[in-house]
């Protein structure tokens, strides 16, 4: 139980750190909230078995972040690009009724081609990296239709 919490804290720290990159300013409330929601989404997706429910959770996350962004206005450029890459990456996935586990290889290839085509297996761009991790969880062996 404790180890899970510690892992979460380390994950949050690393995520915030990688997203800051060259940015000197502290993360905005949107960024902090996104990072928290992202972490929570990953946990939920990992414990959920049904693919359709997982995809609904992803859609709920996209909706929340969109609302958050519209409420707070434009943030720093680094944050905006990070959030766009994350959300656009997730939006590039097929809708729940069209998502097929057997096509996961193509979904991953498409995300790489669209956002980080110089990488062989996984993206390095921070926002895309997060979207790719979500896709990897969706495609994990535990998922069922």
């Amino acid at each position, binding site marked *: 139980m404790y180890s899970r919490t510690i892992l979460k804290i380390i994950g949050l720290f690393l995520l915030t750190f990688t997203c800051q990159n*060259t*940015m*000197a300013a502290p993360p905005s409330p949107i960024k902090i909230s996104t990072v928290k929601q992202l972490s929570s989404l990953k946990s939920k997706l990992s414990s959920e078995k049904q693919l359709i429910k997982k995809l609904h959770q992803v859609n709920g996350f996209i909706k929340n972040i969109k609302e958050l962004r519209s409420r707070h206005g*434009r943030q720093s450029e680094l944050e905006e690009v990070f959030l766009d890459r994350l959300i656009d990456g997730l939006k590039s996935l097929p809708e729940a009724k069209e998502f097929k586990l057997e096509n996961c290889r193509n979904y991953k290839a498409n995300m790489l*081609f*669209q*956002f*980080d*085509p110089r990488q062989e297996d996984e993206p390095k761009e921070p926002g895309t990296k997060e979207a790719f991790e979500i896709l990897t969880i969706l495609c994990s062996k535990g998922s069922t239709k």
Partner: protein
Amino acid sequence: MGNVLRYFLLLIFSIVVGVGAYRLADPTLRSSGKVDFSSFAFGIPSLVEKANSEVKQMNPRPPSLDLSCNCKILDQTFTELKFDSAESCAEGNMDRNYLHMQLERFKKSDREGDYFSPRPTELSSEKDVPLKCVMYVMKGFLNYSERPQLIEELKLGQPISSLFGKCERAKGKPKPIFGKPCLTEEYVFPIYNAFVDVTNCLNHDQRLYLPKLFIESGFHINASGPGGDGGIGQFTKPAILEANKIIPQIDQEIRQNPNPSCRRLAKYLKNNPDTLMPKGNLLSENVSERCAFLHSPPNPIRSLIYYAALQNQQKSAVSEKVDQLEGLMKQAGLANQNLYSREAIKESLYLLAYNVGPSGAQTLFKNWLQFRSQKHPHAPFQPQDFDFNLSIPDEPFKDIKMDEAEKLPLTFPQYLKVFRKGYLRVMAIYKERLDTNLGAGQCTPAQFLKL
């Protein structure tokens, strides 16, 4: 027994003389300069030399194959971009003739002799980029054997943008090798001829590719990056998978198009059916099989066709994504005063997409538009805001933090620089290098990376 031997020798003699006479009488072989008098003259060296020089005088190389220039590469000045000789490449501590055997095999695969030799004037097109452009790129591309400090950097674990790879077969993973291949005629002509044919057949702009390939591979068939990207197109897994989507279609297009370039390619594909789809299958995208894009044969034919296929995919993806930003472009003032050409924006973003992907390019452009219209609404859009040919001063853009940079109405090239995405600016520098050394418009498009 003696009579049999005599008749046999007479028969052989007649065949040799007959074939030689036939080759001399054949106008297509004569005009292409492919007549080799050595097979006809029975080892009389002076006669061979005389005859060959007469053929050369009768068929001087067309202007497109002229290699004279007033150009510089690194600190060396050239009046002619000469081919390397195999002997000169064997000197020093590194033998750069390591592709020789592969090129011999490519020669055999080129049964019609369309790619291995210089082409006569009547077979070249006016729109073809001169050979010297490709030669300059090949010579000017990073050469580790000439730049020992780069080898030092590699040893120290510094990031290296490019290396070369060696493959024994068109399968497996390339082994890193430092020396650039020897720039002999037998190496350069197949690449140049294949480049001309693939671009003409599939209707691609040769000049647009020169600065791009200058950065990527320098046209070297065995260019191989540390991340696994390999071949003339520096293919990665997602790039191969994307090109594979339309390779069957491109294969059909080449075989059915009556254009002379397509016909030559179609003949090569017919004689070498495994070039694009070995045994009817698409090529593997796995890095463990990257030699498929480095080994010759079937490269450079395979890698250039794949490169064209990938460009088609990127172009259409970017075009759609730019059209989605219509409203934002107007809002940012890009539609005012006839300042913007949407095609020029699409072309620049499509070049950027090679590095950051079509959606990645759209994200960066969209955010820049929003940044200018929301954070700097009083800085009206100017053409130089989208001109990568203008130099970016080191200050204040060197190591600038994003939150400081945002206070300035950054141009798009500056915005990308702050994001550490200097790819297009570097491409513009390479374009300028080609223009300065070989003449404006010779190797590159007149309008490049600007509106």
